[in-house]
């Protein structure tokens, strides 16, 4: 048995295996780095989106106030993001137009943020007999300034009558956000939903010693607008909270129910909450939306919770697919994914990731520039020695003043931790760059404190 040839070929294939392994390893590393960059970009988009929601609240309050008290408004263009009309057309094209035999269920958020919000709304209204929509958080006011007060009023009323949830075939619960441990379907069924003008206007208590509302906008509003309404026109606090939970909650892997600090409303609910809820009402699953998913849909909580998101390329071209679900009685669920294709979607992965990244960095820059004067001002205010740096002592003093003035409880250990986190190069002081970077942290910290006091009912 001559060794010569077989030895040679064995060595050759050994080398081939080694070479393949090296290339494999390198490739895995390459893809991982791309994936990490993708995640960073997505995190930026998501946090700006959720932070936006907070500031949108205040903006919306302001607009409502202006509308009530002034007849003329300057025209304002809505933010220029992608039109969701393409996705809608695609869905109708693939599945036929809505009809008695072909019912559709739209699970909320169909008009905010899109460039073609009004077109989408009009098309959906055209087929109103056969569509059931559900409410989502409504930023109706700011998007409809263009079209006159009367239309706005009608649409607002219409919006308040939209159903807040649906149960399909006695086994699937469809809601926009999620659930909480206290979600009560019977209560939600009973609620006179048209009393909920907007999630942004919490019910005013007749007892004025309630200091719970931390949102400045809400306090202004409750003094001026809702005082016109008598208590029977509003929801009870419990009803209002139930609806907020339904519209704003997100599923998470951790068991239990926690305040949703990302959004400032609703909660994070775990698989045990889902199981309890489904068992209580003899349901099989929950279908919800509210969160953008890279593949258009995602299944979690052991198959019991399905997230479906229908706006493809939501954050940026190539950021995500859209999806919808087809259901038939007794049939398994059918998922369909799609992506509105333009040339950018066909590019190789690293180019798509770069495009997403630059988009994320750009909007981050815009955010910072728009708040630049605030940031510089805040920094200078705390920089006593004008050295371009804040020492830890200065920081602690300022923070203590700040917290006592704004009635925010911050403990010493938290201040230290905050300062240490800001001091990135650990030299004992905070320079302007670190401050800018950390501003985000401070903002998050504030939300954390606010939510902790708001959700003391847990």
């Amino acid at each position, binding site marked *: 048995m001559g060794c010569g040839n077989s030895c040679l070929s064995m060595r050759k294939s050994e*080398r*081939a295996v080694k*070479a393949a*392994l090296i*290339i494999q390893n390198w490739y*895995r*590393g390459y893809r991982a780095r791309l994936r990490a960059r993708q*995640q960073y970009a997505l995190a930026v988009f998501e946090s700006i989106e959720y932070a936006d929601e907070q500031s949108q609240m205040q903006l919306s309050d302001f607009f409502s106030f202006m509308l009530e008290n002034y007849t003329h408004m300057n025209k304002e263009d809505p933010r220029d993001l992608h039109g969701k009309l393409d996705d809608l057309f695609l869905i109708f094209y693939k599945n036929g137009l809505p009809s008695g035999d072909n019912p559709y269920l739209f699970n909320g958020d169909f008009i905010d943020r899109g460039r073609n919000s009004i077109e989408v709304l009009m098309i959906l209204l055209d087929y109103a007999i056969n569509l059931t929509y559900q409410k989502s958080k409504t930023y109706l006011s700011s998007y409809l300034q263009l079209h006159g007060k009367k239309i706005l009023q009608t649409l607002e009323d219409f919006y308040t009558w939209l159903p807040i949830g649906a149960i399909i075939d006695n086994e699937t619960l469809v809601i926009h956000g999620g659930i909480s441990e206290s979600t009560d379907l019977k209560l939600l069924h009973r609620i006179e939903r048209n009393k909920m003008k907007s999630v942004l206007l919490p019910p005013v208590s007749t007892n004025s010693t309630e200091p719970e509302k931390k949102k400045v906008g809400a306090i202004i509003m409750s003094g001026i607008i809702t005082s016109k309404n008598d208590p029977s026109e509003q929801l009870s606090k419990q009803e209002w909270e139930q609806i907020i939970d339904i519209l704003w909650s997100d599923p*998470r*892997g951790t068991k239990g129910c926690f305040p949703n600090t990302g959004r400032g409303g609703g909660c994070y609910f775990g698989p045990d909450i889902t199981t309890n809820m489904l068992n209580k009402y003899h349901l099989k699953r929950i279908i919800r939306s509210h969160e953008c998913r890279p593949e258009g849909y995602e299944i979690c909580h052991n198959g019991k919770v399905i997230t479906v998101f229908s706006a493809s390329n939501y954050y940026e071209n190539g950021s995500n697919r859209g999806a919808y679900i087809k259901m038939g009685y007794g049939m398994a669920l059918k998922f369909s994914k799609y992506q509105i294709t333009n040339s950018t979607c066909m590019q190789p992965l690293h180019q798509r990731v770069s495009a997403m990244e630059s988009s994320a960095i750009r909007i981050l820059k815009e955010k910072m520039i728009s708040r630049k004067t605030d940031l510089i001002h805040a920094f200078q205010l705390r920089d006593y020695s004008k050295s371009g740096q804040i020492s830890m002592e200065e920081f602690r003093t300022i923070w203590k003043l700040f917290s006592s003035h704004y009635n925010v409880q911050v403990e010493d250990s938290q201040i230290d931790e905050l300062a240490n986190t800001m001091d990135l190069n650990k030299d004992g002081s905070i320079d302007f760059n670190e401050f800018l970077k950390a501003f985000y942290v401070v903002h998050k910290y504030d939300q954390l404190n606010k939510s902790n006091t708001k959700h003391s009912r847990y």
Partner: protein
Amino acid sequence: MERQRQTAEVFGNENNKMGIPRNCEDGCLVGTELVEVKVAEFHKRIKEAFEVFDHESNNTVDVREIGTIVRSLGCCPSEGELHNLLAEVEEEEPTGYIRYEKFLPVMTKVLLEGRYRPVPDDVLLQAFETLDSAKRGFLTKEELIKYMTEEGIELGSSCL
């Protein structure tokens, strides 16, 4: 002080000596100061990489993302090496999640010791050339798939 404690965490158990590293880049001993700075920098990088996959903001990541996190930090472990690393950071009863408190010290050590370094570019080039027997300067997609799935450890065609 806190920084010295971190250094001890990384080396203390191994050598019973504080602050004397075993391996370093140019093969000579460096002072503890330099190591502390390195450790701080590694901590920062590890924290950032971990956080971006921490979707629930509760200092845990899905165990399936650990490979991506480790690789995004510049390491190139094989699947087997990754498996061993996972064993070090998992809980006694696997929950499907890895906690930051467990991950940080292990990963810091990996970075300090320079484990799982990626191969230098010329070796990578050689590897390609080995498979490209006809010396064309490229590999077709089919050939690549064939090599990746038949030889070596399966990548899974979805990765391609």
